[in-house]
């Protein structure tokens, strides 16, 4: 309003139009948040709200049904005690040690195998279109479907061992699925089979995204293929490693049907993972408080692994 001589009417109309503009602008400002709001609210209620509910229940003595009277931390005390019971192993001890073995091997082998397959497929392969779906298809099948086939294949009386014996290799011995100390490795095998193709696809996509010029320049400098991959390509795939790690970590910690379909818990319950423990105690044993406490501990473990990653990723991106 630099022109002081402007008639009042005009000024008023300008004012009102500015007000309406600012209203629309404000709406425009609000719009993105309004669009995001339902999703965010749903996540807050149905994820974080339910996490709080679970935490609450873990401090009650809920058994078959939720009981909302707070009591004590007996569920955690029991879990804590079970954590150190290794002879004979408590179900909880078995579950968490199995998760250690399973998590490390499953994630490690999937990453290594996925990367290897991706690098091999990236060598201008004829028939890539044929091979890729072969590595990928296990991800498309649920374990209700493939568990039976795997169970047979690993059963010494039905599958691989029997077949090789029939073919004349009678000294061959492979009974891990029946062995309490080995059964968790059969879960790893089936799990790797299921997920490594997906990881391969992620790495393949990452490889295809690398600038060809960089590769050429390195080759001109006389780098061998191995050097090329070790020094240049693999470091450039770092974000893919991290994404793949997140996907695998979440799958390993949620693995439930894998164990049930393949081993029905394993000899003496020796194939349990924490998600099996949680399901068993919540739904089968009617010890909901213990089940909830184990869920809380699982979530805390995930937090400890994921939050640092999220933090570093988001901090970097925030520039």
């Amino acid at each position, binding site marked *: 309003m630099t022109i002081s001589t402007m008639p009042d009417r005009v000024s008023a109309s300008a004012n009102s139009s500015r007000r309406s503009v600012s209203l629309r602008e404000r709406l*425009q400002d609000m719009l*993105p*948040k309004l*669009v*995001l709001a339902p*999703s*965010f609210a*749903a*996540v807050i209620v*149905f*994820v974080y709200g*339910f*996490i709080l509910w679970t935490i609450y229940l873990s401090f009650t003595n809920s058994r078959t049904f*939720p009981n909302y009277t707070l009591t004590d931390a007996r569920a955690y005390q029991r879990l804590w005690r079970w954590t150190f019971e290794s002879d004979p192993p408590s179900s909880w001890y078995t579950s968490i040690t199995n998760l250690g073995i399973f998590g490390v091997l499953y994630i490690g082998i999937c990453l290594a195998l996925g990367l*290897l397959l991706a690098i*091999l497929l990236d060598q201008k*392969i004829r028939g890539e279109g044929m*091979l*890729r*779906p*072969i590595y*990928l*298809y*296990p*991800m*498309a*099948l*649920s374990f*209700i*479907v*493939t568990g*039976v*086939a795997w169970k*047979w*294949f690993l059963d010494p009386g*039905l*599958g691989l061992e029997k*077949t090789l014996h029939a073919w004349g290799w009678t000294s061959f011995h492979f009974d891990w699925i029946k062995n309490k100390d080995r059964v968790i490795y059969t879960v790893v095998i089936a799990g790797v*089979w299921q997920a490594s193709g997906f990881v391969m*696809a992620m790495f*393949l*996509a*990452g490889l*295809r995204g690398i600038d060809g010029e960089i590769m050429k320049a390195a080759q001109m400098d006389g780098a061998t293929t191995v050097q090329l991959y070790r020094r240049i390509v693999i470091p450039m795939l770092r974000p893919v490693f*991290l*994404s793949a790690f997140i996907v695998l970590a979440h799958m390993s*910690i*949620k693995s*439930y*049907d894998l164990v049930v379909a393949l081993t029905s818990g394993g000899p003496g319950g020796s194939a349990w993972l924490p*998600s099996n423990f*949680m*399901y068993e105690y*919540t739904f089968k044993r009617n010890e909901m408080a213990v089940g909830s406490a184990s*869920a809380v501990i699982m*979530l805390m473990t*995930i937090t400890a692994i994921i939050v640092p990653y999220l*933090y570093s*990723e988001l901090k970097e*991106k925030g520039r």
Partner: protein
Amino acid sequence: MSAASASSARNGLILNRIVIYGLLLFFALVYLIPLFVMLVTSFKTMDEIQSGNMLALPKDPTVEPWLKAWGETCVGLTCAGIKGYFWNSAKMVVPAVLISTILGALNGYVLTKWRFRGHKLVFGLMLFACFIPFQSVLLPMATVLGMLGRFGNDLREIFGTNFGFGNPTVNLVFVHVVYGLGFTTLFFRNYYEAFPTELIKAAQVDGASFFQIFRRILLPNSAPIFVVTVIYQFTNIWNDFLFASAYAGSGDVMPMTVALNNVVNTSTGVVEYNVNMAAAIIAALPTLLVYVVAGRYFVRGLMAGAVKG
């Protein structure tokens, strides 16, 4: 001498190719074993399954198990095969995938192009949601769905229809949308993160609105990530058993996985492995098809952004 080194280099190259192809084929064979076992079993008679080798080809191939799985096998007390359950699954999977994908796209758009204070925290919270074990939300979610159902009953008394509240299929769509949002938002956010912001700015200067920009600039360029998200969501939702059995177990709304489980997971009588395997393959056909047909776009889509962090 140079000729010799060239030929040895070529030999090395050929050897190299042999090793690469050998490894790829070896792994392909290993990956195919379970599918192979399922396929050959589904074409065998029960006698042959019980007496023979699981890896052997059927001596006397029969399509009987497939016909039985498709149209005769019993799912509970209804013996009409598993064919009818495709529609139950489709009815739930299609809306769930579409809604969660579209919401994910909008969320990704807001979180990258319309940033506000705390956008990182919002994204972090949504991403962490991917990790919640579904077993632990089963009961509280059932309670919520029960409330929605009672709300639906009230609505029915007033309007004569419940607008879908309390309908098991709608419930499953709702649940899958809620627990799929984390992943879809992650995929789209990372994709749009790399999308040049200048284009958006320019469009804003031209007076384009929030939705106009989304529809005219981002959407046309989102095909690859749509493929990734749709495939991911489709397989996860199609294969879900936990929610489906808990919220939609009755025969008329039961999705395919629950029906298949009822066929396969029986504990009495002679287990008809051939029928089970045929049923399993039939039930998996949609997801298999999606992976094989869309697999090439999948890799392209991942390349275009999903893996960038």
